[in-house]
């Protein structure tokens, strides 16, 4: 039972609450405008949740990331974002810049 528990949890609190919205989209696809008010609101809610997850991963870092000082994590993410904005909104460039700062500063602080 204990070995099956993570898979049961995956179905009940991962798969079903996620899949619900896709299937609802299939069923209700006719007659909903992409720019309707409810769609605008739901996109804003989802965006805030997404960046909420980002901030939580940076501020309350999991696992080995927690061994890097908070200031370094915030600084590296900020530099990465600045690089992303500077270089044609390239996610690749932004991620690489942020990672370079994190690893460089991590080596410096000897984490």
């Amino acid at each position, binding site marked *: 039972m204990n070995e099956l528990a993570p898979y049961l949890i995956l179905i009940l609190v991962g798969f079903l609450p996620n*899949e619900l*919205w896709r299937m609802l989209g299939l069923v209700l696809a006719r007659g909903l405008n992409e720019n309707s008010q409810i769609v605008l609101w*739901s996109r*804003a809610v989802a965006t*805030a949740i997404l*960046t909420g997850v980002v901030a*939580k991963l940076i*501020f309350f870092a999991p696992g080995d990331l927690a061994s890097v000082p908070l200031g370094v994590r915030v600084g590296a*993410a900020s530099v990465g974002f600045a690089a992303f904005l500077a270089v044609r909104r390239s996610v690749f460039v932004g991620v690489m810049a942020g990672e370079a700062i994190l690893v460089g500063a991590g080596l410096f602080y000897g984490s």
Partner: protein
Amino acid sequence: MGTWSSVMRTYETNFVSFAAGVGSALTSVFVLVLAGTYIGIGALTHNLGLSPWWLAISTALIFAAPAQVILITALGAGSPLFEVAIAVTLSAIRLFPMVVALMPVLRGPKTRTRELVIPTHFTSVSMWVESLRILPSLPFARRVAFCNGLSVAYCGTAVVFGFVGSYLAAGLPALLSAALLFITPLSFLMSTARNARAAIDRLALVLGLLLAPLLTYFQIGLDLMWTGVIGGTLAYATHRLLGLRA
């Protein structure tokens, strides 16, 4: 045919169309994005003590990186399951308008609804962007097959790099493992920012960054749900009040 054949891509069979979808997916920039994201998620999964096979199944069943990260981190932190389900479902609402926008592109006069279940299940940013870009140049009869080719290739890429991240994190020194874990917040932040063209989305992006750490710090329950509802509603209300452009 005739005049159209120069504009339309005409695949002889559904299998050829499916294979073309796979090929198109594997040569697109999204393979890099998925590889980086799922290496990060694989590392996260390993750090929180979940098996790489569990991650592989969650990728096939969920195939939405935000929902998977929420699920994995919440399970690692021992959050109540009810709170996890609410956060996952709120992060997934955005899939609803995506499916709604995709269906008219897929559904031809002869398309049966049950053929649309697989494309619906795999609707995600990568597949959605590429489908909307490419499918209009295909005849309706070949669109579902091409779209399924995209889905299988993108999901397969995600599964493979989930394993890669999980095994890398197991063998790497702490600082490099930290670097893998850092991929997820970085790539999420920037891909969200890239999709946030309208003022309402940018405002929601900033509010989410500010609210979540505050709510977590003050140990407010359902912190991600409130981050979404408060941040999203504030952004929406501001958009309505100031008449910002959608």
